[in-house]
């Protein structure tokens, strides 16, 4: 614990981090309720139904928001966990990089997929 606090350095960064975790949490409360209801309604639906659902501008927009907020919230959360448990500096830095790059890649892929459908791909 002591070690992790020392490595965390500035409290400023921690506060900024903490704040973003809360902002995304508030947004996700509403977005996740929307997503749960939508996916429940789409259970077992045909390709066309899912495709046309995603193509609707409102759905496209909300889906991108869900993806972006979820993945950002996830990366912030995983970062806190890594900082709590990994105390070797080099391992920590590499793990954090992997988390950040993976999240970035995943978010980008999802957003491109959603936009691809929106612009009439396939």
């Amino acid at each position, binding site marked *: 614990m002591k070690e992790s606090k020392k490595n965390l350095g500035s409290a400023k960064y921690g506060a900024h981090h903490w704040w973003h975790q*809360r902002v995304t*949490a*508030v947004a*996700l*409360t509403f977005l*996740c*309720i929307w*997503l*749960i209801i939508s996916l*429940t*309604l789409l*259970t*077992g*639906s*045909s*390709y066309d139904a*899912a*495709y046309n659902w*995603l193509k609707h501008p409102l759905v496209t927009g909300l*889906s991108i928001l869900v*993806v972006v907020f*979820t*993945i950002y919230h*996830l990366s912030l*959360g*995983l970062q806190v*966990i890594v900082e709590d448990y990994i105390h070797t500096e080099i391992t920590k830095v590499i793990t954090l990089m992997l988390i950040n790059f993976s999240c970035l890649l*995943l978010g980008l*892929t*999802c957003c*491109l*997929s*959603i936009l*691809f*459908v929106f612009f009439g*791909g*396939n």
Partner: protein
Amino acid sequence: MEKTRPLSPHLSIYRWQISMILSILHRITGVGLGIGTLMISYWFISIASGPKSYSTAQWFFDSILGKILIFGFTLSLVFHLLNGIRHLFWDIGLGFEISTSKKSGWTVVMLTFIFTLIIWLSAYIIKNTYE
């Protein structure tokens, strides 16, 4: 007040246990939701990739493994969401009292099962209307 005093240590250990468990669960479900995020991502990507990929994704989500994963995902998401709201109330300084936090903790546990059940029942009924 005097009468309840001897019970206090016991009660405080009890509260410590439920809040401890829920706090660990918040972390575990947080990581678990990362896997759920991968599944949702796969679903979005499969829609963009066309009908064949979509039916592969549907086959996977409909398999035993898929169902177990989605059930865990539903349970985790509902719990994390409700307990997250509990966290947010603490952050604005509400609900810290021992009795309140114990009550809200158990409420979260109960609602998690109730909402998960409602979601799965609805999904089951809706899926049957498609078939």
